[in-house]
């Protein structure tokens, strides 16, 4: 079950023309939360199963003709060979239009792009995974990876936060993850009557962790930028090295290949050098306003 399939970067075919866009069809749609749905997208025709491979944390550009493109990270299992999985929240015109599509409809896709989670560097130590809101989407593909390679990772904490209980993504899978020895903690900003878990920001959960070997621990985070900044700071307080802290950032992206200039943060192109970036590389810039 946890055989380790290869996850080669799929950059090659896009190299010559990064604008090459493929037609993908919506194979199914799962409603996750209000305004959030997961789409499985498949290429038409006989396709090499490896066509869907990616590194957890990478993203695709989803294209709705006449509306535009949007960078959406993969939220599925990187070993799956039956399509791309994307969890999308309605935010702008592209995602709104996507929400209006149904099974069988087509759209365009370019990808995968970007630097994903550093799965090799994360191996061999303990791991704190922090996800806020929709940031859970790219985290899930990392969890799939961890589950498939469970013996390569030490203690794994997963700390999930969301505004409300119903906004916590993939809760149906938490038990399965726990069975794989992942220490799942949840917290919400605003509880509902039936909520019995934590209330508050994710950092309070991080601060409470008792790390046996902080120096042997890595922290990864994805969520709102402000949440990630605080999560990283909490990690530092616990003794986690800045070189072992990784954040997945978001910026306006148009080309996804570092050629359009939109997504820069200091010297980093978030699309091509990121979206997952090492905290010590970006810390000088992350706290500068309007950079």
């Amino acid at each position, binding site marked *: 079950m946890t055989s380790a399939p290869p996850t080669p970067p799929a950059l090659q075919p896009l190299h010559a023309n990064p604008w090459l866009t493929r037609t993908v069809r919506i194979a199914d749609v799962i409603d996750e939360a209000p305004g959030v749905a997961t789409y499985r997208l498949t290429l038409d025709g006989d396709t090499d199963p490896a066509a869907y491979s990616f590194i957890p944390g990478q993203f695709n550009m989803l294209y709705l003709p006449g*509306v535009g493109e949007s960078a959406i990270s993969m939220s599925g299992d990187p070993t799956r060979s039956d399509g791309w999985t994307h969890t999308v929240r309605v935010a*702008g*015109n592209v995602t*709104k*239009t996507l929400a*209006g599509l149904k099974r069988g409809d087509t759209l365009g896709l370019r990808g995968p792009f970007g630097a994903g989670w550093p799965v090799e560097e994360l191996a061999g130590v303990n791991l704190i995974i922090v996800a806020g809101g929709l940031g859970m989407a790219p985290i899930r593909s990392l969890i799939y990876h961890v589950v498939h390679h469970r013996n390569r990772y030490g203690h794994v904490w997963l700390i999930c936060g969301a505004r409300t209980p119903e906004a916590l993504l993939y809760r149906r899978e938490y038990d399965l993850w726990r069975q794989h020895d992942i220490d799942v903690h949840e917290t919400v900003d605003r509880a509902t009557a039936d909520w019995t878990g934590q209330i508050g920001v994710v950092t309070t959960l991080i601060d409470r962790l008792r790390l046996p070997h902080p120096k042997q621990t890595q922290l990864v985070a994805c969520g709102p930028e402000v949440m990630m900044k605080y999560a990283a700071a909490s990690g530092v307080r616990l003794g986690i090295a800045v070189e072992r802290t990784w954040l997945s950032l978001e910026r306006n992206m148009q080309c996804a290949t570092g050629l359009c200039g939109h997504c820069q943060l200091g010297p980093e192109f978030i699309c091509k050098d990121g979206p997952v970036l090492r905290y010590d590389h970006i810390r000088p810039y992350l706290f500068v306003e309007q950079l």
Partner: protein
Amino acid sequence: MSRKPRLAVFKFASCDGCQLSLLDAEDELLEICERIDIAHFAEASSDLQAGPYDIALVEGSITTDEDAARILRVRAESRFLITIGACATSGGVQALRNWGHIDEWVRSVYPSPEFIHTLATSTPIAAHVHVDFELHGCPINHHQLVDVLVAVAEGRQPRVPSHSVCLDCKRRGTVCHVVSRGIPCLGPVTQSGCGALCPAYDRGCYGCYGPSHPANTTSLLRQFQKLGRAPDELVPLLRNFNATTPEFRRASEQLVVLQTNGEGKSL
């Protein structure tokens, strides 16, 4: 939505040019009518249907008590209200009265001023009711109008670029008149939309799409003064079709203060 969205066009104080833009979309007009139900458009059709409307296009500014009351009714029966053109978005050229004395102005034009009932100001629609989207220009660009209509009909938020005219000048290879000829051009502080027409026709931009954001008029006007342009030459440049937008109004009033306090001073 399964039924076609119902469109209404309303006119206030204006020249008709912006609503004509819809009829100027010759290639698209009949197709638009297949997707949008033109329920009320007096300039084009005698079939004036009652509201409510899904989309209202409002042209013109408010200059009379009756119009101030009418725009409230238009708002009440319209789901998505779009103002089109400089009159509706900023008060238009008729808003120059805001700096004059309305009674004297009326007397200068009409032999029987007592019959004229007009307000002392010309105000944009947004000063009276909530506006869902503003399309700038004197006149508006009919391609932008079609894009906005299609976006609303498809349930998307309409968007138009808000950068300065300069970007369009450069994309079309037009040489900057401020730098190469020293002529005052409002391009650096004016919103895109016209396609950077005036500079391509060898004249400076006169700001008919209104201020860009940001519109650093202070810095630009200081430069024009450095180039030898006196305030009394620059005030009319700012006071035309978008004179009462906050950015252009502030700039022209600063210049008037300079003018009153004596020439030779700079912003």
